C-alpha cells in the first residue's frame, strides 16, 4: 500500500500537478507530518498512525491560496476538508486528494462507519459493510445519576491543557469561547464541572468528523469521543444531518424549521 502511495505522489510531483504533498514521514523512528516536494526522497513515507493532516492543508492554503497541494487523506480527513470548505476555510479546487482506506482494525478502533474517502482512485480496500455494534450499550443502560457520577469522575481528571482543542481539525475559530473568562475562570483546576467539556461538545455538534484525535491527545484519558459520538447520533436523529456531506449546511446555522 505504501509503495502505491509513493508511486502516486511521485507521479503528481513530477507532472507538476501539485507543488507539495502533505503526508507523514519517519524521522529517527518516529512518525511526523511533513511536506514532500519534487525531488524529495519518498522512502521515509509512512501511512500510520493517523494524524489530522487537514489542519496543515488549511494552514498552507491560508498562507497562499494559489498553492497547489495534494494531501494524504483518510475518510475522516476528507470529512474534515469538506466541512472546512463549507465554512470557507479551504478551497477544494486547489486541493488534490490521495485517498487511502483504513483497515478493519483501525476502523473498529475509531468506531468509524465510513473508513474511506469518497474519491474514485482509492488506495487500499474499501470496507463498506463493517459490523460495529453499539459501542454505548453499557453507557446507555446507566441511570441519570450514574451518568453524572461517571462524567464527574472523568472530567475531574482534566488538567485543562487544551490538547483536545488544539489537535482538533474542526477547531479553527480565532477566538475560542473556552478562553472566555465569562464561562471559565482562569487558574482553576479541574475546570468547573461541566462547563469546559459541554461547551466543547456543543460547539462540535455537526462538526465532529469522528477522527478520535482529541481522545488520543488527552493526557488524562477522558473518553471524549463517547460524548461526541452521542451528539453525532442525535444530530442524525433530530435533524437528519450527517457530517461530511457536500451540500447540506449544519442545521444549527440555518433558519429552517424542523
Amino acid at each position, binding site marked *: 500500500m505504501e509503495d502505491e502511495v509513493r508511486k502516486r505522489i511521485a507521479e503528481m510531483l513530477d507532472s507538476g500537478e501539485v507543488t507539495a504533498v502533505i503526508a507523514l514521514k519517519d524521522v529517527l523512528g518516529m512518525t511526523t507530518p511533513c511536506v514532500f516536494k519534487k525531488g524529495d526522497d519518498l522512502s521515509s513515507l509512512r501511512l500510520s498512525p493517523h494524524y489530522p493532516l487537514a489542519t496543515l492543508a488549511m494552514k498552507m492554503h491560508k498562507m497562499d491560496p494559489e498553492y497547489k497541494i495534494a494531501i494524504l487523506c483518510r475518510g475522516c480527513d476528507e470529512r474534515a476538508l469538506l466541512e472546512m470548505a463549507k465554512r470557507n476555510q479551504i478551497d477544494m479546487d486547489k486541493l488534490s486528494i490521495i485517498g487511502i482506506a483504513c483497515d478493519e482494525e483501525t476502523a473498529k478502533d475509531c468506531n468509524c462507519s465510513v473508513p474511506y474517502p469518497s474519491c474514485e482512485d482509492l488506495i487500499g480496500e474499501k470496507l463498506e459493510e463493517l459490523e460495529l455494534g453499539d459501542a454505548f450499550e453499557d453507557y446507555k443502560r446507566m441511570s*441519570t*445519576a*450514574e*451518568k*453524572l*457520577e*461517571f*462524567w*464527574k469522575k472523568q472530567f475531574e481528571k482534566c488538567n485543562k491543557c487544551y490538547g483536545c482543542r488544539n489537535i482538533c481539525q474542526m477547531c479553527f475559530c480565532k477566538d475560542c*469561547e473556552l478562553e*472566555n473568562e*465569562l*464561562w471559565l*475562570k482562569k487558574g*482553576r483546576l479541574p475546570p*468547573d*464541572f*461541566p*462547563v469546559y467539556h*459541554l*461547551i466543547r*461538545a*456543543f*460547539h462540535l*455538534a455537526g462538526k465532529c468528523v469522528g477522527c478520535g484525535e482529541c481522545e488520543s491527545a488527552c493526557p488524562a484519558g477522558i473518553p471524549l469521543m463517547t*460524548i461526541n459520538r*452521542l*451528539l453525532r447520533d*442525535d*444530530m442524525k436523529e*433530530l*435533524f437528519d444531518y450527517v457530517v461530511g456531506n457536500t451540500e447540506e449546511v449544519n*442545521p*444549527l446555522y*440555518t*433558519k*429552517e*424549521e*424542523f
Partner: protein
Amino acid sequence: MSDEWEPKIVGFLCNWCCYAGADMAGTSRMHYPANIRVIRVMCSSRINAEMIIKAFQTGADAVFIGGCHPGDCHYVDGNYRTKKRIDLLKRLIEHIGIEPERLRLEWISAAEGEEFAKTMKELRDDIKKLGPSPLREIAREAI
C-alpha cells in the same frame, strides 16, 4: 414563611413576547410562584449554549426560555434557531446526567399573561418533584 425547599429557576425571556407576557401577568395581578429570576434578552436566539450551561453550573435548578410563537419572531426566524439549539442541548445535558426536564422552552406571546403564570406554576411543581439540581452540590463558588 415555610422552610420548604424552593427551586431556583433562571429565566431568559424574549423582549418582544415572553417578557411582555410576564409583564402582562404582573399588571393583571395574576399569582405565580416567585421562583423565576428573569433575564431579559432581545431574542430567544440570543441565548447560546454557554449561558445555559453556566446557569446550571452556578447552581440553577432549572432554566426556562421563553420566546415568541413560531412565525411571530420579531427578527423573523430567531425562534426556529432557538428551537433546534435547545432540542440538541437537552440531549447533551441528558447524556451528561442532568434531567432534560430542567431545561424548558416555551412559546408565550405578549397577550398570554395567563399562560405565563400557568407555565411558571407547572415548572415549579415539576422541578419540586425532581428535587435540587445534582450540580448544586458540586457547583463551586462561581463568579
